[in-house]
């Protein structure tokens, strides 16, 4: 039984890793007051470019670099549209998702080798395999933490670090101020525009990594719609985490867990229709949003950065 739990937990963590990267990334972005709904497109593009890069260079690390670059670039575009042009952030984000998904699918049909009709689908390339840590991985239950790939291990640093950065450092304080009240931040000498660019791009890079984890580790290779809507689930996860990186893991594990259970049940040949199982993560998203909204109203605690989605310009009243 313990062994079963440990193995479900291990799968959960593997499934949750890409979600956690994207959630932390979006938390940084939203904390600066920018709402980026382009996640789905950015993850897809991160997944396809990292896989293609790794495939041709033979280096998973170069794949990661590609994902960072692509995520950062799309995010920079979003920052330009929402911060500099001060256009509607929802529209900009949705456009980026449309653009990113379309481009990813196009690249998936063009970047492959000639032998495969230029399709990437079906090709296998280098991947991040689980690095089982001897000893630690033998622990009951906790052992699940120590049979992961390097990207998951890196999360063990990223999560506490992000929490510390946001709540304990001067830069984190300034970042939170910009998302809460850009007028005040500006008056206090904080560069609002720079901050918003910086964290939107940083967030985008992490989202790109989330995409890369899918195509280089979790389900190695490229398939159409490899994200399966994870970019949207992340939007809900950020709310679930109440914009706090230390809670980001919780939600991601909840959703990763649903994935894991789904796999297990399917493998065990359950009678529950597959369609229903596939629906679960999305039902869960709706459920989480309802509960969080209700809880927020009830406790009068507001997690959302007050200026989220609002553009700011100095001389505008």
């Amino acid at each position, binding site marked *: 039984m313990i062994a079963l739990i440990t193995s479900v937990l291990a799968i959960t963590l593997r499934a949750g890793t890409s979600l956690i990267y994207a959630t932390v990334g979006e938390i940084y972005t939203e904390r600066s007051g920018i709402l980026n709904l382009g996640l789905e497109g950015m993850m897809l593009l991160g997944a396809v470019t990292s896989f293609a890069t790794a495939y041709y260079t033979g280096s998973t690390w170069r794949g990661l670099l590609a994902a960072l670059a692509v995520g950062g670039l799309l995010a920079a575009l979003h920052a330009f549209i929402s911060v500099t042009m001060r256009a509607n952030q929802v529209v900009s984000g949705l456009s980026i998702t449309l653009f990113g998904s379309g481009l990813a699918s196009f690249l998936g049909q063009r970047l492959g080798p000639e032998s495969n009709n230029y399709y990437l689908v079906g090709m296998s390339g280098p991947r991040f395999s689980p690095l089982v840590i001897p000893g630690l991985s033998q622990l009951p239950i906790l052992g699940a933490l120590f049979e992961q790939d390097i990207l998951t291990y890196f999360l063990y640093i990223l999560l506490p670090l992000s929490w510390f950065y946001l709540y304990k450092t001067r830069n984190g304080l300034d970042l939170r101020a910009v998302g809460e009240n850009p007028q005040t931040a500006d008056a206090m*000498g904080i560069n609002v525009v720079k901050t918003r660019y910086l964290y939107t791009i940083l967030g985008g890079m992490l989202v790109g990594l989330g995409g890369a984890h899918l195509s280089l580790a979790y389900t190695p290779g490229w398939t159409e719609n490899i994200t399966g809507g994870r970019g949207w689930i992340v939007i809900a996860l950020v709310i679930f985490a109440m914009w706090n990186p230390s809670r980001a893991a919780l939600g991601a594990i909840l959703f990763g867990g649903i994935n894991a259970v789904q796999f297990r049940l399917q493998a065990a040949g359950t009678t529950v229709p597959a369609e229903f199982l596939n629906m679960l993560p999305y039902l869960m998203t709706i459920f989480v949003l309802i509960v969080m909204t209700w809880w927020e109203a009830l406790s009068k605690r507001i997690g959302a950065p007050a200026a989220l989605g609002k553009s700011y310009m100095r001389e505008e009243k």
Partner: protein
Amino acid sequence: MNEPEAENTLKNPILEMRGIVKQFPGILANDHVDLELYPGEVLSLLGENGAGKSTLMNCLVGLYRPDEGEIYVRGQRVDIHSPKDAAALGIGMIHQNFKLVQTMTVAENIILGIGALPFVPDMDAVSRRIRELSARYSLQVDPQAYIWQLSVGEQQRVEILKLIYRGAEILILDEPTAVLTPQESHELAGVIKVMMAEGKSAIFITHKMEEVMEFSDWVRVLQHGRLVAVKRTAETSPQELARLMVGREVLFRLEKRAGTPGETLLELRDIHAEDDKGLPALRGVSLALHGGEILGIAGVAGNGQRELTEVVTGLRKVRQGRVLVRGEEQTNRSPLTMIKAGISHIPADRIGMGVVGDMAVSDNLVMKGYREAPLVEKGVLRPRRILKYARRLIETFRIATPTPQTRIKFLSGGNIQKAILAREISACEGLLVAAYPSRGLDVGATETVRKMLLEQRDKGMGVLLISEDLEELLTIADQIAVLFEGAVMGVCPAQEADIESLGLMMAGVRQTELASAPAIA
């Protein structure tokens, strides 16, 4: 322009602004304005609402870019691109609207944006330093408290501590006392005096003449963006300053005809109600307001005034007691019912409750009348009639707006206020609830507003006037009731009231107890 100070002073100005021009769409907010500030002195900057005072100061701290003009600090020509540049020059500003992050603590707000701090600030050390400074300047505030937990007065203390913590030498105070109670203003005055004694300099914007006379050395007056006067405080008078600001003689005392109270319009019987936190805010309030009468409600803010206006306008439910309008039961009715019963409301939170910032001035002006003909016909708005109606109100109430279509948030505070007043008074059918109607207004606008209230009264309407300003109540009210901790301490006719006994009642002494204490009378 007369510039007599050049020969009068031996000191060099610590700050100089020359020929500042700032243009906004449709309005020239600053038109070649000059300003000089001397070390250790206070300069009062006066002007009507919308004269361009805040704009000029925002140019100084780098939030606005002036279109023309030069700034010199300690004799050096400077180029201020952002508040960070200003801070580096020792310039700090308390803005007209608080610049505080509600969800952060006092300490966090104070250190926001200070680049010189270590990457991981030692918050305990910061708090200790804040406590030290609070003690030195008697600005009591808990560094660990969240801003949203603080009263307006405490938030203002945080704003001052921010300046002190950053070591600002040139302080800009933009109407810091507008939102304060008289006690809090007094406390602020003390702090300013201590800081001046330390050699700091300040530019002080206020509409209160006593404050100008009390602590400034120099006065500069702006009118429609232009500098119209430079005076030594010692050589001028409130009357002269008011005239310079408004461009006409201002009556500090208004003509008030004897009232003729008519039928009882509003009756409150033993009202009990709770505040937002569920604590008792009104404890057995009974009042009666007649037509042709102004009933003033005196008291320190936070003693149930807000809940009282909300009960009368249908925004808050009572737990016990009855509300009667013209003798009819209207307890716990909706705001719409109360509007239909003829109650108009000038709320204390004007921007939040009084107007929709992103809508046109004209639309804001008809927001109450739009349900009825002729502004609406068969459920469809009639834009041309609305515009005509709005133009008439803009003219009658002298609302300064570039066009009726301008979004109302672009107007200055005083003009937004006049717009609300115009709407509420024109839609008023008998009963007007006015919460702090002259708060934040310049002397000219204050006079206009008070006159309007008196006019309504003379037309036979009843006015419930909530105010902290005893002068105001004594000048225009017919009856004055004093509220303390949610209970009425006493009601007396304004002619018979004196400031001293009102003050005692505001501190919780009942009128009946006053009478039995002959020492006071």
